């Protein structure tokens, strides 16, 4: 892969760029290359800024690609992404990455936008017997929760770090995993999100007896 100025990329038109929670957006554009659920794309708005990577959140057979992203106030790309309007251009690389080999009965653990590859897998029908543990600061950041409640029922566990006690688990995913009674060391675990979340959760899983060979992570570095 060459540097951004040299790699082939497509120009796509933005079909929608919708705010789904404060500072969080779903960006849609036309799919022009097949992909495997769990893969990522590099996105850019101009050649001046290095591209950033985004997991594809839509199903493999959808005609549109959906990207779920949060705006970083001090970030270089996301403040520009959030300003994109319908019909404007976006630079899109081919899909790549291998966070795609999902074994049966997986436990998906995600923080924030780390839910994206798991959404793609679920919507594509690539994963069965799933438990999904998702962490977010406030209830509005449980993207896709309507769909997930319908699909996964009790196997969809929301860990809300700044919620009042109620129907959700109050605390971070790491707090949940530490005390999770149903943790099964034989299931495969898939982690996705920031390095901090992944490293901490991986350590907890290991300390609870999950073999490292059962843990696969995607880090949003």
């Amino acid at each position, binding site marked *: 892969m060459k540097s951004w100025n040299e790699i082939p990329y497509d120009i796509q038109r933005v079909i929608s760029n919708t705010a789904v929670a404060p500072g969080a957006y779903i960006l849609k554009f036309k799919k022009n290359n097949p992909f495997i659920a769990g893969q990522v794309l590099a996105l850019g708005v101009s050649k001046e800024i290095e591209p950033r990577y985004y997991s594809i959140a839509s199903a493999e057979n959808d005609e549109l690609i959906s990207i779920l992203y949060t705006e970083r106030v001090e970030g270089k790309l996301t403040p520009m992404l959030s300003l994109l309007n319908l019909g404007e251009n976006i630079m899109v690389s081919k899909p790549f990455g291998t966070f795609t080999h999902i074994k049966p009965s997986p436990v998906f653990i995600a923080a924030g936008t780390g839910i994206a590859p798991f959404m793609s897998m679920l919507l594509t029908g690539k994963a069965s017997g799933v438990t999904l543990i998702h962490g977010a600061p406030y209830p509005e950041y449980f993207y896709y929760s309507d769909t997930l409640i319908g699909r996964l029922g009790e196997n969809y566990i929301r860990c809300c770090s700044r919620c009042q006690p109620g129907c959700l688990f109050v605390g971070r995913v790491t707090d949940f995993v530490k005390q999770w009674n149903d943790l099964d060391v034989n299931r495969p675990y898939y982690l996705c999100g920031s390095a901090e979340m992944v490293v901490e959760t991986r350590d907890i899983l*290991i300390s609870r007896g999950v073999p490292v060979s059962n*843990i696969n992570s995607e880090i949003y570095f």
Partner: protein
Amino acid sequence: MVPLYGKTLDELKSIVTAEGLPSFTASQIADWLYHHHAESIDEMTNLSKKAREMLSAKYTVGLSKPERVSESADGTKKYLFPVANNRFVEAAYIPDDDRATLCVSSQSGCKMGCLFCMTAKQGFQGNLSAGEILNQLRSVPEFKNVTNIVYMGMGEPFDNLENVLKSLEILTSKWGMGWSTKRITVSTIGLIPAMNQFLEKSNCHLAISLHTPFDDERRMLMPIQNVYPIADVVDELKKYRFSDHHRVSFEYIMFDGLNDTPRHVKELVKLLNGINCRINLIRFHPIPDSPLRTSPDERIIQFRDSLTAKGIFTTIRASRGQDIQAACGLLSTKALQEKR
């Protein structure tokens, strides 16, 4: 105050132009910073008094001494340096018979999450500027003895490519420190786009953290495998011509029962076929709560011999500074970060 140390000649030219000073002043400043090792603007005596006053109002040389040193029984020293935003990094000075290597950090913490690494447990706090990277060399008391520099401390150098390239430019330029590129090695886990830029822009040696040739195993040890599989990294490397002047080596930490079998030797040979390279085998230095163990010495030797027999030049790296947590994979300033 803006530090001058770590600025390239072009950056110094922009500074002097902005201050309305003659453009040759930039070369004079570079000379003071990187040849004469000046510690203050006042020392730059061939600059006019007015120029020094103008610069001193906004700029400083910006060196910072290590805050702490730990010394190993084997002579290795670990230095703790303060960097921006109340963060710290560590650098390891490793003297040997005829050489002395300094292992520098490029980031405070790291985002890459490798399973075997203490820095990963610290998370990421920030990139180092070129000046902060070079300050680790300039400000160790053994500065003048250092013969080799390796970017293998805290952080992934290619996640901070711009500053790493700037620091290399300063280290190797005639107007800078004038080091030979043969004395410098930059180590990466294989961030392909940045690695390609490095190979196009720099002739310093490259080291790739390989650790296992098999996908599933590498994914377990290094999440980056999901983004840039090692086979793709190697395919990219095959496009470059490596020689003794511009060398590529592979770092291979030996984990007991995990990546130290004849099956691994066979696959490594297949993977690296066609690249002029060497492999460095490294003992794993256990980190707290790690499920991983280092391979026994006899297996490491066997592994080396098998690779050598297959025509791959393979060495076993001596473990240094383990008693002061300065050995490979042990650098962390998390405890300090938490105190602040």
